[in-house]
């Protein structure tokens, strides 16, 4: 009898304990993040997740591979991710830019920022996934203006078919964690170049977890096509912004900072653009690396991404 009671007691307490643990676990998760949207689209698994403790809402294109976009719920127009601020550094080169193209909408952070800070700038956005456009409208407070056009299309197909030219082209087209190969090649870079006005420039987000051979091959591809190239390493997120310009001469950091200050006059960006330029500015035009440029025929993006450049291996071998 006592044995039976003991057994019942043991099993009972075990069950209660388990339920308790489970409840604590679920509660703990609930305060950490709230999933607002989680659906398969034609291209991605789109997830919108709120992190109430941080007051942020994030866009993910896969469960594990990083944040596509982040929004501060109390200030939806603020540029939250550091790389998106580095992208804006491109605007310091061209304070008078009137026509801007963005390839890859993400969470619409950059277009919202431009809509608010530069209401006269005409911004066109090419995004392959119609569901991403919808999610931006429903969850990231992305609204239309007379100067905003969204084209649902593959970036490369758009360049091939549109006659329109731009002062500034921002490339941020990522499928989960990599750029699709046909948006990395010399043929693509030529298309981009053909769509720039004289003196125009392109800023491309290169997001690589480690510095790998793809990264250098991509730098080489742009370097061969443009007279000037710059890099803006954006903190420790792994993002590096590549800026390639049709300007003949390089722009010195002091001059770029002066332009940034002119841009900042009368505007509150929520971050110091001149300070960012001072910290991140790197001229890459005369740098050399041993990689071959990527072409449509030969763009082993996935292989190169897994390989470290030779000189890094040699560096590692040194005692």
């Amino acid at each position, binding site marked *: 009898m006592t044995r039976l009671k003991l057994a019942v007691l043991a099993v009972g307490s075990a069950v209660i304990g388990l339920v308790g643990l489970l409840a604590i676990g679920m509660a703990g998760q609930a305060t950490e993040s709230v999933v607002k949207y989680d659906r398969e689209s034609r291209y991605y698994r789109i997830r919108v997740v709120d992190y109430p403790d941080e007051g942020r809402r994030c866009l993910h294109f896969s469960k594990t591979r990083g944040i596509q976009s982040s929004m501060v719920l109390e200030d939806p127009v603020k540029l939250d991710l550091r790389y998106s601020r580095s992208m804006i550094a491109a605007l310091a080169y061209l304070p008078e830019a009137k026509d801007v193209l963005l390839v890859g909408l993400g969470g619409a952070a950059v277009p919202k920022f431009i809509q608010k800070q530069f209401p006269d700038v005409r911004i066109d956005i090419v995004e392959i996934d119609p569901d991403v456009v919808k999610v931006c409208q429903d969850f990231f407070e992305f*609204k239309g203006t*007379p*100067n905003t056009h*969204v084209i*649902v299309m593959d970036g490369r*197909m758009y360049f091939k078919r*549109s006659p329109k030219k731009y002062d500034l082209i921002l490339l941020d087209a990522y499928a989960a964690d990599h750029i*699709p190969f*046909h948006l990395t090649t010399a043929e693509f870079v030529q298309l981009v170049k053909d769509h720039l006005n004289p003196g125009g420039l392109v800023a491309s987000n290169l997001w690589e977890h480690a510095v790998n051979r793809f990264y250098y091959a991509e730098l080489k591809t742009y370097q061969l096509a443009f007279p000037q190239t710059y890099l803006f390493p954006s903190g420790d997120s792994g993002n590096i912004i590549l800026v390639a310009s049709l300007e003949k001469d390089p722009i010195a950091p002091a001059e770029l900072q002066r332009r940034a200050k002119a841009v900042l006059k009368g505007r509150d960006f929520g971050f110091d653009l001149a300070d960012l330029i001072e910290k991140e500015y790197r001229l890459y035009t005369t740098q050399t690396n041993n990689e071959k440029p990527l072409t449509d*025929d030969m763009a082993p993006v996935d292989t190169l991404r897994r390989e470290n450049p030779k000189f890094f291996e040699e560096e590692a071998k040194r005692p």
Partner: protein
Amino acid sequence: MTRAIILATVFLAGAALMSMEMASFRLVQPEFGSDIIVWGSLISVFLVGLALGAYGGGRLADLGPAMWKLGAVLAVAGAVTLSIPLYADAVLEWVYPGQGAPLPTEWKESGTGASAAPVADSTKLSVYEPPDLRWPTLGAGAILFALPSILLGMVCPYAARLLIHEMPHLGQGVGQISALSTAGCILGTLGTAFYLVSWMGTRWLLVANGLVLVGLGILLVLGHMAARRKG
């Protein structure tokens, strides 16, 4: 000897077929985008080719089977594959020429950035939907890859017919051919995806596959002649 040549042909033809299929993705993606539509269309083209080829190849095999005829089929398949890089760009451009972008009307008139027309509801987002590319993609894939996959689809039934007198157990013999062919397909897929695309690029890959098939064709014709001299 004859048997070994035919079985090797079955294996290598499978490898070349899948290698070509992997290359086809890389060939079409720059023009038609990275889209599940592209992969679906191209896989379907190859499967339709295999089905038609198997049917036709089986019938052809019953009309007097001979090794040199299979060799001729492979040589033609190889020659077609070899020449795909010559006209691929023109075909892709012809099927989906530079029109049909869903552009705002004011761009089409002016060419370059005219100011946008006033919109009644200013916070409504102007979104331009893409053209439907399902049938053009399938069409381009069919023009480029249907013929070689039909020809390669003939290999398995033809090989089975050629070896029928050396098969004491028909089930086992046909199963062996089918397994060998699939093993070749696996090698072609993995080899191409893991190594060949980064070693030789898309166009040379097609040329290499074509050369392998032409080589196999010649081997079969030579094998036929050698067997006849003996017999």
